[in-house]
């Protein structure tokens, strides 16, 4: 028997050969994937919401006869940053002044409107969604809790 085979037998008895998986390519690919998803994922950073409850006026079956119907304040959004507040007062003509005006009308600020007075935003045709939301934001900013968009369906005639 040659010396090489003797040495192999001795090594086989004391030190079994190791079989290992080469993980380097897998780790490379996994890191590539990780970087791809890190850069490619977009989170909803900065997105916030306005709460609005939408009752179904068409399907409303029972109406409480003793429920007082609060007359809403209707704010027409005319476009180009202009608004018109319907009612017996001289309201602001710009959306930028709307929140301040509505806040002054609040009962706890010396005005006549309780904070649960329905505020109906009524955008004219041609007004974009961003401007309608701007007027909505002004009413919420002024501290009113029941803000909605005007319902144009003939059955309702009030807020959504």
């Amino acid at each position, binding site marked *: 028997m040659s010396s090489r085979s003797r040495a192999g037998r001795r090594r086989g008895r004391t030190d079994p050969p190791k079989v290992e998986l080469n993980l380097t390519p897998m780790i490379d690919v*996994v890191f590539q994937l990780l970087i791809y998803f890190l850069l490619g994922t977009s989170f909803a950073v900065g997105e916030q919401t306005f709460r609005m409850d939408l009752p179904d006026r068409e399907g409303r079956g029972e109406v409480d006869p003793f429920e007082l119907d609060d007359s809403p304040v209707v704010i027409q959004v005319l476009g180009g940053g202009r608004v018109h507040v319907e009612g017996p007062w001289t309201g602001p003509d710009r959306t930028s002044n709307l929140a301040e005006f509505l806040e002054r009308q609040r009962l706890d600020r010396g005005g006549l409107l309780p904070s649960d007075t329905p505020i109906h935003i009524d955008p004219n045709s041609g007004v974009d969604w961003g401007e309608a939301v701007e007027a909505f934001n002004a009413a919420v900013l002024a501290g009113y809790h029941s803000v909605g968009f005007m319902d144009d369906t003939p059955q309702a005639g009030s807020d959504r």
Partner: protein
Amino acid sequence: MSAVSRLDPGRPVQTGANLTPMIDMTFLLIVFFVLVSRITAVEQVPMELPVPTDPASSPADDAPRIVVNLAAGEFSEPRSVTLDQTAYPLDPDGLRSLEFELRRRLAISPEVQVNLRADRRLDYALVAPVIDTIARSGRGTGRPDGVRVNLVVMNEQENGAAP
């Protein structure tokens, strides 16, 4: 890597970093990003959300939600309203289909809310029928106060951009 054994100076010792925890963590991160990117791709259609100047909006809560997207196409005209990955045309038939689908999902749980993401450049007259559809979809789902809708806006102050 090899070093010399202290017990047997003639025999080299195999040394190496244990990569198993690192590989575990990396795979967990990849699974996380794969799932999150799928969710955001479905819910967040790219669009220009309304940006109020002094926003009184609040952060979205963790309640289960349905996200309705109304993105603007070319010339600021919406092609369709999307719910998950299904597009519904903005005609009476499409809106009726959307209403049925919303009603089916709203009936599953009373806590479900509807998030409305609409492009700020869209004409309000195009968004209004979608709002009407959402309102009608709450019929028969046990919601006496109606469907709770969250109008999604972008708060640039929260986003880190200049107000």
